[in-house]
């Protein structure tokens, strides 16, 4: 038991769980697990990665866990394949999840975090997200199978069929309202709304957390300066969401569940929604304890826990460590590497437009292509920065305190 708890504790560390999720995600999307088969090359690649991690684990112990997790999940997915979308399997997965949660609640530390009144909705959200993701992908899978054999999605089969609003729609709405009211009342009776001590502007609680739905942002703040994580990125999230209908010119998949017909759109969206947003919220809520330190779900929130958090800037890394000189005085020279790196990153779309993505470029037109590409790049900057932080303790790629401009 202790081993499993330790395993999960280590696994849930941002550097591992996030990497894991990201790559599993790529696995699902790219290799189209929905088809029920792992392509040999991809499968081998992941197995190779897992084995590599295992070997590296000798030097960097956490990687051992990562490798084990990789292989376990890969194994499970390979076994399940398309049966993942079978109702019975789904139900079983759901029950297993519930059981695991119930068992975990026996752990006092886990109970303390998960049973906190304000965290209960987030626990519910985890299950709801899991359930609905499964539902959506299942429906997409069924439709895709249908389309693959030359059929049409079932939504279309009944699109001509119209029902009277009264009683069909009105009745279900009424029932939903009643049931929801029941849920709300029971929830309110069972859980007391939290009320802590009176506001005291001179003493911060430890940890001081934002409302839970902004914890993703607060988590981002660990990796980016506030102006980016708190202002620019949230703005771009909204802008990005609003831009979706105008960038996505794929006429397929309008009004029905489908995956194959819009693999990239769904992949990117799900990555942003599930991993970059929901997963970070879950991390921020359950796994960030006193002093914003990372705590595994079964770990005691000890305010005295000490974690080394020494960071370096890219300029220091390059000038001092690699080149072995001191930092140049003039910021434009000092930050030449950061500027270069960012320039290269931002220069990717035009290069790609000329190269591999020519097809996209031509299809979408310049405006759509560039807006979409840059939004995507900015979205991906978060995981990139996270990985850089974990690998190199990198604090800033670009650090111009002269004008307060840090990336």
């Amino acid at each position: 038991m202790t081993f499993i708890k330790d395993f999960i504790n280590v696994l849930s560390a941002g550097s591992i769980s996030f990497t894991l999720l990201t790559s599993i995600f790529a696995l699902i999307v790219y290799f189209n697990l929905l088809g029920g088969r792992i392509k040999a090359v991809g499968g081998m690649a992941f197995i190779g990665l897992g084995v590599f991690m295992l070997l590296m684990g000798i030097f960097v112990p956490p990687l051992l866990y990562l490798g084990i997790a990789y292989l376990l999940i890969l194994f499970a997915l390979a076994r399940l394949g398309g049966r993942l979308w079978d109702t019975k399997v789904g139900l079983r997965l759901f029950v297993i999840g519930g059981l695991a949660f119930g068992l975990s609640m026996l752990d006092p530390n886990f109970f303390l975090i998960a049973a906190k009144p304000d965290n209960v909705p987030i626990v519910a959200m985890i299950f709801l997200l899991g359930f609905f993701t499964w539902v959506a992908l299942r429906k997409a899978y069924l439709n895709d199978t249908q389309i693959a054999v030359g059929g049409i999605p079932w939504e279309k089969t009944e699109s001509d069929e119209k029902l009277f609003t009264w009683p069909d729609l009105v009745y279900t709405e009424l029932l939903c309202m009643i049931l929801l009211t029941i849920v709300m009342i029971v929830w309110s009776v069972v859980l007391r709304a939290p009320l802590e001590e009176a506001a005291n502007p001179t003493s911060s609680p430890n940890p001081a957390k934002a409302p839970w739905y902004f914890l993703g942002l607060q988590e981002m703040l660990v990796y980016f300066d506030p102006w980016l994580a708190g202002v620019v990125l949230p703005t771009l999230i909204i802008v990005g969401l609003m831009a979706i209908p105008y960038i996505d010119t794929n006429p397929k998949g309008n009004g029905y569940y489908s995956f194959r017909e819009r693999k990239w759109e769904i992949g990117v969206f799900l990555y942003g929604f599930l991993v970059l947003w929901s997963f970070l919220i879950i991390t921020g809520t359950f796994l960030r304890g006193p002093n914003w330190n990372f705590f595994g779900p079964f770990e005691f929130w000890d305010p005295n826990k000490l974690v080394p958090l020494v960071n370096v800037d890219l300029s220091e890394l390059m000038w001092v460590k690699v080149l072995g000189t001191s930092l140049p005085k003039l910021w434009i020279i000092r930050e030449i590497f950061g500027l270069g790196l960012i320039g290269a990153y931002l220069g990717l779309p035009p290069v790609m437009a000329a190269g591999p993505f020519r097809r996209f470029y031509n299809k979408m037109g310049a405006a759509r292509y560039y807006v979409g590409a840059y939004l995507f790049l900015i979205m991906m900057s978060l995981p990139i920065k996270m990985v850089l932080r974990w690998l190199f303790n990198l604090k800033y790629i670009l650090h111009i305190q002269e004008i307060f401009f840090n990336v």
Partner: protein
Amino acid sequence: MKPQEPIPHNYSIRRLNWIFALSSLGLLVVTGLIVGYDYIRGWKWFQLEFMRMQRERIVQEVQLASSAENKQLLANLDEQTRRNSLELAAHRDQYLSAQKAFDAMEGDHYRADQDYRFAKANLDAQRYIAEVSIVQHRSDAAQQQTEYERQTKHLADLQVRLQEVTRQRDAAKANVDQWLKKIKDAEDKRKELTASVDLLDKQLNLVDMDRFSTNWILSQPMLDFVNPVIKIDQVVLNDLSIDMNYMNVPRVDRCQTCHRAIDTPGWESKTEAARLSQELQQKLDAYDIPQEKRKETEGRIAELKRIQDAPSDILNPWRTHPKLDLFVGSASVHPLLEYGCTVCHRGQDRATEFGRAGHTPASPRMEHRWAERTMLTGGFFPLPRDFEKRNWGYEENEFVETPMYPRHYYEAGCIKCHSGQMSVDRGDDITKATQTVELYGCYACHKINNWRFSDLRKPGPDLGGIAEKTTPEWAFRWISEPHDFRSTTRMPSFFYQRNMVDPSVVPPQERAHNIKLQEAEIHAIVSYLFDKSTHRSWSPPGAGDAARGKQIVGSVGCLGCHVDTEQVKDEKTGRIRLAKREDFPLERNYGFNFTGVGTKTNAAWIYNWIKNPKAYYTDAPMPSLRLTDQEASDVTAYLLTMQKPGFMNTPIRPPDAQAVHDLAKGYLINTLSDRDAELRLRSMSGHDQLVYLGHRSIEKYGCYSCHNIKGFEGLKPVGTELTVEGSKALHLFDFGFMNDQQWKNEDGATEHVIHTVPSWVYNKLRNPRIYDDRRTKVYNDKLKMPNFHLTPEEARRIAMVVVGLTKEKVAENRMAGLDARTRFIEEGRKRVSQHNCRACHVVDGRGRAIASTIADANFFPPDLSPEGARAQSPFLFNFLKDPTVMKIRPWVSVRMPTFHFSDEETNTLVTFFAQEGQRSQFDTARNVNPTAQNVMIGKQVFTMLRCGQCHVTTPVQNPENPPVPNTAETASLAPNLTLARLRLRHDWISDWIRRPNEMIPGTRMPANFPRDAATGGFQSPLAMAIDTPQFAQYKATLLPLFKGDEKELKRTMSDAVALTDYLRDYIWSIGIIQMRTASPDGQAPSMAMPQPSLPPVAAPAAKSTRNQRGAPAAGSGPGR
């Protein structure tokens, strides 16, 4: 109805119908749930339970009231009523006609009354019209005026008529009443008899909760707002607001919601009932209760007896608050409606649930009992009726910022308002607690920014001359473990404590290392102290006789502040054991215990110290007893016999060079690089290294906080500031790994650490290093608070003060003792406490610790309770400055010492006494010259009452040294009355003669004028005696003074006030009016104080050479 048109559905309507039905039923159920959830609240059960208890009690009382006797009386009355009605029926006609006449008159009266009122209203209106017409110069002014006058007249007529009619009506009424009188009388009597039962019935109705009773119905959900019986009670206190972080929010105390009987007498616990009934009985016996309340008090005592005899005790939320005459009671100084509860007890004011109210357990057992069943019922539905099985719903609530003070710490709440007072009236616990804090000098290391604990002197002696007083060897052993030398010392143990050497918590290897380091530190401290010490030479004493010295020590008053033994007989076991501080009164722990003083120091130092303590250091708290050279030599000889040779036998190892080096380097590298530190150390000699380390160690342990040490002037005290310690959040207290743990105390008993602030502080005081248990810490990071070897009681008291020091502020008008008069008094009380006056005197009714060493109460130092009313301020001033200006009772061996008070200090004391005695400080009474006649009468009375038996009236030539009457029975002597005019207040003398026992209970002065128990007036023994043959000659002498008026003479002889005034006049007339006044330095001209003589050349030279040698080290010394 038309048949339905079939249509396609997505879902089966039949199934939806079922879902609809089920979910609607579900909604109905949860609607019930929400109502139930809101309705069932924890506090309601307490109220229901209390109502049940009230019902039981009322039913009992009804049974008592409706005794068989009463029933018989009632039956008789009913019979009488019946007969009266029969009689009335027999005279029906007469009665009816009378009634008719009265009815008619009523009509007339009504009419007349109405006429009068209407006319009055008209008149008022007319007056206004008339006034206005005059003011506005209307043409009809005169006419209106006439009309007004007419109406006035009319009204007068009507009034006469009304009065007439009223008279007639009353007569008619009387006529009717006459017929009804008998019936009415019987009814009245019946009412009277049943009144108490009726009242009880009414009360029973109020607490009735039977099913379907009015109360029950109105307590049902949704109806419980109409006229709730079960309801939240609260007290809103706007001016005792809660400081909610820069904001004052009214305090809303809802404690009474559960603590129902808190302000209602009759629900006391058995212990409180026993205490209270005893107190009341005493008052009753002493006629301290006014006549009209005696019966009531007796009833109350009977009630309290019933409570004591009841089979079960009343349990806590329903108990009456103890001491209702002091707290909560409406007539007390802290009435519930004005003070509420949480201002003293703390806790969450608005909370209505046990768990949220901030109740704090006092013991792990209590905590367990409270919390036990929380998990079972989740705290929602506290249904079980059984008290023991109840779910208290306790859980530690980190969000209550001010948890209640647990049991044994209640009086901590007094500090908030009473911090401007030295003692809290009737708050014995807190008074003793603040005294304990002062005695141990907690304020020296821990700053307490609070009037009570500021401006106090450093508790330890000045160490600037330590080398003159003792040897390094002694000092080393003393610092190592002071308790080995004296079991009662207040010097705490810094070294070899639990976190350093206790084998149960320190691994052996680390332990050995720690011991080395500790030794090095002690060596270093000793080296520093002796290095910086002065080396004055003190003149040696002459030859002394130890036996005589012992006698002097026992008689002049040394034992008021000092104790001369370490062996006491244990009260429980009867065995001789080592003394604890608690074995002696607080005041006697003020000076050191004489035990071992001969081992500690040398003859010259003792001799000179006794002669003039201020010569050794100016702030010495020890006063001078003005011993002669010979006396001082004797005392020195005696004290030198107090040896403790065994103490000096413990071996001392030389300091471990490596340990000194490591420790010193540890400090040096804070500011130097490793290499520089090493260089610096290498440039120092071994001794210099020690001195350097000593400096650092003294800084580390904060020795300078209690002792004056050269090189540490003006440093901040070493400990945490305690000014608002009681408000510090629980999570800021470092429990280490000791939360909810136990430890074994010195007696092998188990002590618990529970997760509350008082528990933390208490355990910290009991075992200061306990929170280091199981922690891995660097040597210098380990806890360093020293061990005072406090007993549980002392630790509890000090902890009580600590948790009582909060940042909560109350409005100034609620603070106790802020008025100007009290400020004067409190400042004086502070001096009294600082100079330990209570060692010898009774002040404010407390003190005289020395009493246990003096066999005969007649030789006690005086009781100063009435001093303000008694002594003239000029005398007091001079006497305090220099007690030799007058010897009042020269036969008493205890001496008033010379304290060398400054003028300012003396004034504070004099003002204190005058204010406390409610007297103006200066008066002209000394110049009052009584008439010769009064003096003559007074003289006769003086003789008649035989005052001369004890009091001498021979004029004193020299107040500094009055002759002692030549008698063997010095115990029966009283002060020479010719000194009275210099010393006593004019008005006080007669008052004192009248009621000496009331002013100073147990005084030797006889009460010649006993009080009359009935009237409370004074009786004169001469009233009767003057007519007896024995007094014939006095009568003959006196009669001419009353111009032969015997009646007047006898009247005077029976008038205690007049007689005492005559006595006073006589005493005044024989008084001398010249005395010496104190010199500025407060020393008698004849007193020669020894002064230290510095060694002529050698010492300074030696010092300077040392300084030169130490020069390199100085750079890294305290300056940086």
